[in-house]
């Protein structure tokens, strides 16, 4: 049969179910621009609207804020008009918007709700009238000693709330409604598996590079990168993309650990003061002390984790257990609607308990909702028996109503390290959860390896390099540090110090902290300049303060009853604080909204505009049936008959898709990494590999040590650095044992080689060390190569 071209080019795009007439989406494009650096980003998001049909339209675009973010202002432009937003108390702004609409004017409102959810509403868009809204957003980044990671949500995750109402409205289209008493009139987008006809996304960002030699890469989008001086111009490598995942951008120093000197960003703000952000690398605080750990792993087994995420999370947990010694104690918690524990007590990381953990994890699959608070609480209770410790939480964080969890987390003394997974970010929530508890947060996309990221984070947070950190700044007039930095510093994550002073100049950063023994004091000379960029730093600090203030806003605390007088008074105090912060920094938040009304010639009151909520793509990797009830549509407004004209073929690669200069992950690592993870899980509590006798154990341990080293791991670097350290300790402790002089020398040479980061001689180390290959080959193979 011959298929004519015409058949393929017939009605493309969305069509109404009733009459098959085309339905045009009011928002056509979203384009992200702005500047990024290691302390944050100042972003402009361009939303392009064109309404079709015969009636005026009210377009509502729901989106979620990145971490430490706040809206500053917007400009609305169209044929013959341009207007700027005003910042007003939320209720007043909503009234202004409604009055504007009732009079027939073009009106726009950016209102923030719980969980960093924002609704941008643009009402009375006339048919065919192109209207553009330029929205300015201040956003934080995930700072690391060697660079930073930036995430920007291009879609929203259909997260879990026990009282959310969900429905599948058409095949591949789902809707969710949140309880009004918590979320007011917030609207959520419709999620679609078919990306045809959805608005197009794009980006072009200026990135300030933290050093002379830097890598810029993205595991989420193909990039085009141009380096110019100390900056990179980073854009989407193709004409457009679909809104079904976050943009994730990594900026990293190439082949450099970043050193010990703090990075200083400073400048004069519009208030006449000098604003600064200092990033003090973790190396400035020294090495983490060795002490017994108590750690509870909390695993999210909700339905949204099903498939590859939970498989990788489980193997990563087993590998993390391999990094624990006999003196360390651990617990395992898995949660969805229910909480299950490996055992009701913390257990030593002996082979017996690790085997129990393996068997227990094998029985864990993904299902149900995300009662994260219960999972964290169970972990906390386990830790309480042991005195102190930390939680290591692996979750997609896809839960609404996070303020209660954050409120409770801030009151406890347990550090929560969070590893977030997923294509759609709950980065804001997980970053806040870690910060409020003095932990570290990482978020990986599904195109990256979960197990690698888990091991990397677990290695970094083995113990804080500094506790009870206090920061001072001398040498500048009227210096203020705000917000106060967290009390702990972990390897790989710098201490961020925001503040301001009457003027710039030479100053001394004074650090005092605990590590192993007496209090350690450090003084570092820094130069705080008065150049440009101070206003951005002031705004970033404001966004951070607002995010912190919002984190408990509207939450019902323990012992309170929703709606009672004490809860209302506390809420009112929080609202006033948010209003004050909003006015001081000129930034919107849950208590302050942005509004603009444009009076166009010919405006007159008419029927209310037709409200259209801008749909988005279901986040990559999620299954519709995991969230939405399967049901035929009763009365759908529109469906998609044929893949639309803006259909994009998405590459399914799980690896980063484009690199500048050099790749961050080497090719063909996936299989090797799986093998290494499996090997790591077999390391015995004394740090060595299993074997029939000590000779066989030493021999096996050397093969494994060389396998780790050949894959880029050393005692201080690589995701398996904790395992490498433990193997070296085992070997050094047990030499010479029954070994001959020649064998002992070979082992010593291998240890020396790995310690100094030397090149491992070519050999089938990984293949020979992998499970399923016992017994390990004899000494001859080793002696020939060492």
């Amino acid at each position: 049969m011959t298929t004519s071209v015409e058949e393929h080019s017939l009605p493309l795009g969305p069509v109404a179910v009733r009459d098959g007439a085309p339905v045009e989406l009011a928002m056509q494009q979203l384009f992200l621009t702005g500047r990024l650096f290691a302390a944050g980003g100042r972003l402009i998001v361009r939303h392009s609207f064109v309404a079709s049909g015969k009636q005026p339209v009210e377009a509502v675009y729901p989106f979620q804020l990145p971490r430490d973010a706040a809206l500053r202002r917007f400009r609305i432009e169209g044929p013959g008009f341009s207007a700027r937003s005003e910042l007003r108390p939320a209720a007043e702004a909503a009234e202004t918007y409604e009055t504007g609409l009732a009079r027939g004017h073009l009106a726009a409102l950016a209102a923030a709700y719980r969980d960093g959810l924002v609704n941008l509403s643009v009402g009375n868009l006339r048919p065919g009238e192109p209207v553009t809204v330029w929205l300015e957003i201040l956003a934080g980044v995930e700072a690391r000693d060697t660079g930073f990671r930036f995430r920007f949500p291009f879609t929203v995750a259909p997260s879990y709330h026990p009282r959310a109402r969900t429905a599948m409205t058409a095949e591949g289209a789902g809707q969710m409604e949140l309880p009004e008493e918590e979320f007011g009139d917030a609207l959520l987008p419709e999620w679609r598996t078919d990306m045809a006809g959805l608005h197009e996304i794009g980006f072009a960002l200026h990135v300030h590079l933290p050093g002379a030699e830097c890598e810029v890469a993205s595991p989420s989008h193909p990039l085009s990168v141009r380096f110019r001086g100390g900056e990179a111009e980073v854009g989407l490598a193709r004409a457009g993309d679909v809104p079904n995942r976050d943009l994730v951008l990594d900026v990293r120093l190439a082949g450099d650990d970043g050193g010990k000197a703090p990075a200083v960003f400073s400048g004069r703000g519009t208030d006449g003061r000098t604003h600064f952000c200092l990033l003090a690398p973790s190396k400035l605080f020294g090495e983490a002390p060795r002490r017994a750990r108590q750690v509870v792993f909390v695993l999210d087994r909700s339905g949204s984790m099903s498939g590859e995420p939970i498989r990788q999370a489980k193997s990563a947990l087993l590998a993390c257990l391999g990094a624990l010694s006999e003196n360390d104690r651990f617990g395992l918690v898995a949660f969805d609607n229910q909480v299950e524990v490996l055992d009701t007590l913390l257990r030593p990381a002996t082979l017996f308990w690790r085997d129990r953990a393996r068997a227990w994890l094998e029985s864990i699959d993904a299902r149900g909702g995300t009662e994260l608070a219960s999972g964290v609480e169970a972990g906390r209770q386990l830790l309480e028996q042991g005195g102190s410790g930390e939680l290591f939480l692996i979750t997609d964080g896809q839960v609404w109503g996070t303020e209660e969890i954050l409120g409770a987390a801030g009151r406890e003394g347990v550090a929560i390290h969070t590893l977030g997974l997923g294509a759609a970010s709950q980065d804001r929530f997980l970053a806040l959860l870690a910060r409020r508890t003095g932990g570290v947060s990482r978020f990986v996309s599904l195109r990256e390896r979960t197990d690698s990221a888990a091991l990397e984070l677990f290695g970094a947070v083995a113990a804080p390099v500094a506790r009870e950190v206090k920061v001072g700044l001398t040498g500048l007039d009227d210096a203020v540090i705000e917000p106060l930095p967290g009390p702990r510093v972990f390897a790989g994550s710098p201490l961020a110090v925001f503040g301001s002073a009457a003027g710039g100049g030479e100053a001394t950063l004074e650090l005092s902290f605990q590590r192993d023994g007496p209090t350690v004091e450090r003084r570092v000379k820094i130069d705080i300049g008065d150049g440009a960029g101070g206003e951005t730093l002031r705004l970033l600090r404001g966004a951070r303060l607002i995010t912190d203030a919002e984190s408990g806003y509207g939450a019902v605390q323990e012992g309170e009853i929703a709606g009672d007088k004490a809860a209302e008074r506390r809420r009112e105090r929080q609202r006033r604080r948010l209003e004050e912060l909003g006015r001081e920094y000129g930034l919107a938040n849950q208590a302050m909204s942005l509004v603009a009304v444009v009076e166009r010639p010919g405006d007159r009151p008419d029927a209310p505009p037709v409200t259209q909520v801008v749909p988005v793509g279901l986040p990559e990797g999620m299954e519709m049936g995991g969230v939405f009830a399967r049901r035929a549509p009763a009365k759908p407004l529109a469906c998609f008959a044929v893949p639309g004209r803006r259909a994009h073929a998405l590459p399914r690669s799980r690896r980063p898709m484009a690199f500048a200069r050099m790749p961050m992950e080497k090719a063909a690592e996936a299989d090797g990494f799986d093998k290494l993870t499996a090997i790591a899980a077999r390391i015995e509590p004394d740090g060595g590999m299993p074997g029939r006798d000590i000779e066989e154990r030493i021999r096996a341990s050397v093969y494994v040590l060389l396998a780790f080293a050949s894959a880029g791991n050393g005692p201080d670097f690589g995701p398996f650095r904790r395992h490498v350290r433990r193997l070296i300790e085992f070997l050094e402790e047990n030499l010479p044992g029954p070994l001959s002089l020649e064998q002992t020398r070979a082992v010593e040479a291998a240890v020396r080689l790995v310690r100094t980061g030397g090149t491992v001689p070519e050999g089938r180390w990984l293949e020979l060390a992998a499970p399923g290959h016992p017994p390990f080959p004899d000494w001859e193979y080793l002696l020939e190569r060492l």
Partner: protein
Amino acid sequence: MKPTSADRRLTLTELAADSGVAPRTIRYYIARGLLEGPLERGRKAAYGERHLERLRKIRELQEQGLALAEIARVLDGGEGGSLPEPVVVETYQVAPDVAVQVRAGRSPWRKRLIREALRELARRLAQPEEGDKPY
């Protein structure tokens, strides 16, 4: 003469205040076909008692856990004169003398919560009551 409640004319703001539903939500309901548009257009755009009643009905159905797409189906069936959509229910026998019916089509996590509650109910019903305990 004071207008009767049937004659009342409300602006969108008044309708929102009386119903407790935000103006933008009301517009959204109109766009989705859950609620009729205003009685008149232009400056006199106004809403009446039947809008208020419909909003109350929608709220009531929402409190029963129905999503807007489902509410549209219920309201259409009830008022459109056509036969109502068949409601699919799942029956759980939690005890020899107790069966619980659950409306089908819940989200997976809601289903799971319901099943857990039913298991708990079954467990409790299986235990002998205080008075039934043998001496």
